[in-house]
């Protein structure tokens, strides 16, 4: 297995300049975060946080500190309301399936949007297929926004759980979430409202009290924390049953031993994210605008996916290059040191393009040519300049190969 990838990498080589934009799928961890993590592997807190010895208590302290840090950033909630899981995917699963398992005798309707992350869509479908719930997908408009009037038609007295993202992970749409929460709670104040804030966290305000949500998902790697750790805010009083069974430790809803180095790294990433929040967003937005403008003005036949107004999150650029297939473009760019992902079917397990792009009305061939860029505070102006130099040539080369012409 590994030999083949080794050969591939040898052929690929190391491009002289590298720019990484694929924060959607994973990202590098900055040194200041790693430095915080390292001692927890072998110096302190390497014990089990629920055992009565010093390394265990050190681990426990690290978990509590991280919960407090996270709790402060989402509206000064009770740190006990934060649960650590091992990813955003797990947090979304805990929210949806945890709710469905706990309330399986009651059943009812689960309402999610058609552009949710698959870790929301699939658990909702699973609850529908196995636990007798009814999962429904709310459509979105061309910009990925849910029309409140349409939403009203989907939420009824049967509805028990709603899960709507605050910011979409692919097209960056900032949902008018509070409005949707109010609609749902007007129908029935007992409706539990979950939001996947993995792509909102660090980019828009995520005060759970102001949003009036009951559960919220946060993921570490999306803010340059380490992979393998996520969090779920669960408002006190909301009862869940973990879909995961095993020995409990600190987390009563997520069995298994907590991973202290990752949790400590997550905490550090949170602190960095909220230090100079507005200036970072302004900086990233400027770079992002330059990237989108540069691409659409130099490369013909492009479509920007998602809103081009205040409803687009500052770090997101998602562009379809017509007459080019996205996976081929990711490889062409990779060979030139630019690392992106595509919503193309060719990079997918089921050979279906991104469900998000189809949901906003993109045709298959438009979705196949999509490329997602996410910018961060670690990007420099010269990174964008380099991208704007390489990208038009890459697109041009693949268009020259293609029999599908404008």
């Amino acid at each position, binding site marked *: 297995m590994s030999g083949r990838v080794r050969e*591939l990498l040898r052929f690929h080589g190391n491009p002289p300049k590298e720019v990484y934009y694929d924060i959607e799928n994973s990202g590098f961890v900055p040194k200041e975060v790693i430095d915080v993590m390292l001692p927890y592997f072998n110096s302190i807190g390497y014990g089990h946080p629920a055992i009565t010895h010093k390394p265990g208590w050190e681990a426990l302290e690290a978990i509590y500190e991280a919960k407090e840090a996270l709790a402060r950033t989402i509206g000064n909630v009770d740190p006990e309301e934060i649960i650590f899981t091992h990813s955003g995917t797990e947090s979304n699963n805990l929210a949806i399936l945890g709710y469905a398992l706990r309330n399986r005798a009651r059943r009812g309707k689960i309402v999610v949007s058609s552009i949710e992350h698959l870790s929301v869509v699939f658990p909702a479908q699973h609850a529908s297929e196995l636990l007798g719930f009814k999962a429904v997908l709310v459509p979105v408009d061309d910009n990925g926004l849910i029309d409140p009037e349409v939403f009203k038609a989907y939420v009824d007295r049967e509805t028990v759980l709603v899960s709507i993202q605050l910011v979409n992970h692919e097209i960056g749409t900032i949902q008018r979430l509070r409005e949707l929460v109010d609609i749902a709670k007007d129908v029935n104040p007992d409706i539990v409202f979950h939001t996947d804030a993995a792509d909102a966290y660090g980019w828009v305000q995520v005060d759970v009290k102001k949003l009036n949500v009951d559960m919220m998902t946060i993921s570490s790697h999306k803010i340059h924390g380490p992979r393998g750790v996520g969090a779920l805010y669960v408002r006190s009083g909301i009862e869940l049953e973990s879909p995961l069974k095993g020995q409990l430790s600190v987390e009563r809803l997520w069995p298994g031993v907590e991973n202290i180095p990752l949790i400590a790294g997550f905490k550090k990433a949170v602190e960095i994210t909220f230090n100079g929040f507005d200036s970072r967003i302004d900086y990233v937005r400027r770079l992002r605008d330059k990237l989108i403008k540069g691409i659409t003005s130099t490369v013909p036949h492009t479509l920007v996916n998602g809103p081009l107004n205040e409803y687009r999150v500052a770090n997101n650029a998602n562009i379809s290059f017509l007459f080019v297939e996205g996976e*081929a473009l990711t490889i062409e760019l990779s060979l030139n040191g630019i690392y992106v992902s595509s919503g193309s079917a060719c990079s*997918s397990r089921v050979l279906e393009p991104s469900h998000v792009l189809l949901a906003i009305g993109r045709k298959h061939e438009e979705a196949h040519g999509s490329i997602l860029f996410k910018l961060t505070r670690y990007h420099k102006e010269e990174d964008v300049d380099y991208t704007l130099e390489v990208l038009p040539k890459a697109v041009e080369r693949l268009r020259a190969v293609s029999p599908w012409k404008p």
Partner: protein
Amino acid sequence: MSSRIPLPYSPKVLELFRNPRNLGPLEDADVVEMAGSPACGDMIKLYLKIAHMEDGDYIEKASFESYGCAANIAAASIMTELIIGKRLEDAWRISWKDVSNELGGLPPIKYHCSILAVGALKRGIRSYYRRLGIQPGWLPKDLTIEEKQVIEEEKLMERYYRSMASLDANQG
């Protein structure tokens, strides 16, 4: 994004992706054949120049254009390499598996790329003889697995867009 799958391409795929052999239209082609569609996410256009010899019809030149992933471009390119200089009868015997093997083995999810390439070839050979009004003995009447798969893929998209159109019509 949609559900992901690891794609450990062989260096051969990357090499042909980067420097495809026999790329571009053939001015004097006797056969120009398409398989796939933009909606499918992969599409191959194959060009063949046929030479009539005493012992059969030979592929004198072959070239391609490809819209699709790296495996698609590589599969089309290596197939043209495999068929140049062959009699049509022998080129017909090339299977999608042969093309995949020549690339060092495609990941299973990419088998359809070599199927598309071989499907385009077989379609092209068939239409060539149909145009001449000849049915060689070695050319089976029934569609091969590659030809069937290509039709299947193309129809899938047609069906999808028909059902979307009817949804739109109902909403309107």
